[in-house]
């Protein structure tokens, strides 16, 4: 799944079929190169952990229940701040060479594992992800 395809899509409660918000930013754990939760634009700054996501597709994101939305932890808040407006951020290799700007993030819908980062039209394998910072995304 591409982040560009789900950004702004509705987040739906499976039990009530009601919209609880829309997909905002990604919360990424760079060490595990995995998306751990999705920031939901619900007006309350809450997010949904990956274990509460039932499905992700072009129809939106289905979550187990409205109760799955929770306030972010301190770590998540920090990662959220770094992951905010991620698309367009510069991508730097650990050798200090600019690869380009981040176009998109491709991930496995089942577990949130980042499969690849798309930068300047070419794919960088997700396991090369090292850090997501305010200045740059660092890849090995």
């Amino acid at each position, binding site marked *: 799944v591409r982040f560009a395809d789900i950004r702004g899509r509705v987040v739906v409660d499976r039990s009530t079929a009601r919209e609880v918000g829309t997909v905002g930013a990604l919360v990424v754990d760079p060490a595990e190169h995995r998306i751990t939760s999705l920031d939901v634009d619900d007006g309350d700054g809450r997010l949904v952990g990956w274990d509460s996501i039932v499905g992700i597709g072009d129809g939106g994101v289905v979550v187990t229940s409205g109760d799955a939305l929770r306030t972010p932890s301190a770590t998540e808040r920090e990662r959220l701040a770094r992951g905010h407006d991620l698309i367009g951020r510069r991508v730097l*290799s*650990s050798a*200090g*060479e*600019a690869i380009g700007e981040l176009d998109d993030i491709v991930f496995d819908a089942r577990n949130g594992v980042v499969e690849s980062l798309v930068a300047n039209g070419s794919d960088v394998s997700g396991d090369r992800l090292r*850090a997501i*910072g305010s*200045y740059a995304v*660092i890849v090995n």
Partner: protein
Amino acid sequence: LSAARASRLIGRPVVTLESGDIASSVKDVVLSARSGRLRALLLERGGPLSKVERKKLPLSAVRALGPDAVMIDRADVLLDADAKASDSDIIAIDAVSESGGRIGSVRDVILDTDQGAAVIGYEIEAVGGGKLLIREEDAISFSEDALVVAPGAEAVEWNELGGFGPAPPPRSET
């Protein structure tokens, strides 16, 4: 060989590998006269609206001197620097031969960014015009006053080298 002009490092961002944040940017380079290597980078962060923060980055803490950024592990590898931001500026000093003849003035320093930032040579604006490269092994000593060059050193014509990219515009004194 991965050659870079020392002057091209100036202004380059210093970025942390662990967090992808910008820690500072390069203000000046410090060369070691003894080892013929880059010894440290002087950094400066802040500007008109914030306090200027000066730091020193020893070469040992540099993970990569990349074309777009200088990479370090974490921001805490930076050392506090004195307010004075230049104890090594050899740009514009005279290059003189051991016998006392003036060869020209130093315009830039060429570094090998792979081999521990060793100095490859000194770019000289020759007295009679044109550019020369004095190789590091032909440099006897340098200070902020002069670069002393060994007798009989063969200054390589710039054109023979294919250059190391265009020279940047002269730095404005601050």
